[in-house]
């Protein structure tokens, strides 16, 4: 992202939600915890030598060890490293930047719930419609063709051409598809 310093500078006036340093530390800590979890399970499985060779936890034990050491050094470097003093103070994400990200993330979460309970086709139509409305402020005239064509095309391609069944819900059952 170094190639776009201009966009970053312009956002400086914009309020930062969280600093890069905080996120660096949080993500390193996350890696450390995952490493600890893997190590805990490796110890349960046994990480030494048995009559059939290395035990099941042998390989993951060392993997988790390297991961924890790397994560801890990264955490310490981002927290106290001199080199990271300037870059760490930069905003990780500003309010202005976070809004569009959440405007993708929330509809996506609802979309996946939708696939589970309404089937893929109906939720795809709804997802595209909502996405275009929120992120593009389009009217019904522009939304309808896209939101209808895509699921129909997907249906023809997957169910008819490639014979791959996709999740269906109550509405497809009503239509007898």
């Amino acid at each position: 992202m170094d190639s776009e310093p201009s966009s970053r500078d312009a956002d400086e006036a914009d309020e930062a939600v969280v600093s890069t340093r905080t996120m660096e530390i949080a993500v390193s800590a996350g890696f450390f915890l995952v490493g600890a979890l893997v190590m805990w399970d490796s110890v349960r499985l046994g990480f030494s030598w048995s009559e059939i060779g290395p035990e099941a936890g042998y390989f993951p034990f060392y993997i988790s060890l390297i991961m924890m050491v790397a994560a801890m050094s990264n955490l310490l470097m981002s927290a106290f490293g001199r080199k990271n003093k300037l870059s760490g103070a930069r905003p990780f994400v500003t309010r202005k930047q976070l809004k569009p990200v959440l405007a993708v993330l929330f509809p996506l979460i609802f979309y996946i719930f939708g696939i589970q309970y309404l089937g893929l086709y109906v939720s795809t139509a709804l997802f595209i419609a909502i996405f275009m409305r929120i992120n593009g402020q389009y009217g019904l005239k522009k939304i309808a063709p896209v939101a209808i064509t895509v699921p129909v095309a997907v249906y023809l391609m997957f169910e008819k051409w490639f014979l791959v069944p996709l999740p269906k819900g109550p509405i497809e059952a009503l239509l007898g598809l």
Partner: protein
Amino acid sequence: MEEMNSLIQGFGVVLTPYNIMLMFVGIFLGVLVGVLPGLGGANGIAILLPITFTMNPSSAIIMLSCIYWGSLFGGAITSILFNIPGCSWSVATTFDGYPMAKKGQAGEALTTSFTASFIGAFFAILLITFLAPLIARFALRFGPPEFFAIMLLTFASFMSMGKEAPTKVLMAMMLGFALACVGIDVVTGQLRMTFGSMELLRGFAFLIAVIGLFGIGEILVSMEEGLRFRGVAAKIDPRVVVKTWRMLLGHWGNFLRSSIIGSALGIAPAGATPASFMSYGIAKKFSKEGDKFGTGAIDGLIAPETANNAAGTAALLPMLTLGIPGSPTAAVLLGGLLIWGLQPGPLLFVEQKEFVWGLIASMYLGNIAGLIVVMTTVPLFAAILRVPFSIIAPIIITACSIGAFTVASSMGDVWYMLVFGILGYLLKKLKYPVAPLVLAMVLGNAAENAFRQSMLMSQGSLGMFWSNGLVGTIATVALLLLFWPLFTWLYGMTKQRKFA
């Protein structure tokens, strides 16, 4: 000349109307995924992989590899017309490609870059044709220690070749290995890292990780940057093409040099990006118009484009001969081969001759088809890029979700895709490399098995990796590469001290 005969037989396999149709479909889809943000070779193939399950392996790999060629070609379109590199190895293409387009030479720039892509790929395919059988024959003698040492070398090269912080490379890589361990351990039958969950029993499919990290993660980053395409209009006039080609003849030296750099670095993973930059840098020194680099110099466009396509293609060489992919996209292709029951590696050249040579023949034809498709359809793809992102993005997300679901017809995978998407967003913003994570997920089990078998052979002594000259050399080089960042850091420290 055994290779020539095999190759001709390979052409016999490929040249059916159905396969040629698949080739063009693949190239077209490939350019499309190469052009659209949030998609790309690796992700595009991962999404489309499930629909090829019903095809025979030869046809399927033809289509999938053509998607790859198409995406390599397509990357140049966005770089030149829109100044937006589709992936990190297209960055150097924007340096002189976009200035050329702005000067009104978009047709020349596109023709040059497509030709350069074609020549780079062609050189690498020639290399594969003649080198792959040799490497495969040599690798037939490899045992578990040699394979483990080569994998170590593969992963160590990320440490010394990547631009990212070495700690971050290690973290991403180890996460990939840890994820690969989840599920049933094939040797002991024990459940690992499942923590009593039924859903985790299956383990993590790396295709889901690819779709999440490269697809959803990329879209989240793009949305944040407020993607607006302001491109230069383009049309490729046949007269311009002929004129450009005649002019390009004079730059054969640059083509050759860049092809060699690309192929050599492309065999190592993470090779394409350094190859394109290195090739650009060297061309700048050698070119007569070196001082014009960055303002639209033709040599500055030829060099990175030739090198990155040569590298992208050469990445298939270790994938086919050793079962070790040289790039995330090659890893996804490897995943496809495994799903069809083909085990890439030296034995593939003995047991599946027809398939291997069919694939190599399709590389030649696929690149010719690619050149034809991109030359004729540039206006179409440029028009697609002008469709607002708020219409394209939901369609891409839909494609990703369907792709994630169809891998194993599981809703759980769609949720994992979301998690990997958010992880991809965080990693990308904090400059973690994603490629080692994906490669570790793909190779994790193979690496672990090779390690365990080696340890069994030696009764637990690491000396196994220095038990003969070959494995010892590979292991030593791997360790040198692995600790390279540490050496340079220590060197920097002592130097600083001297000056302080």
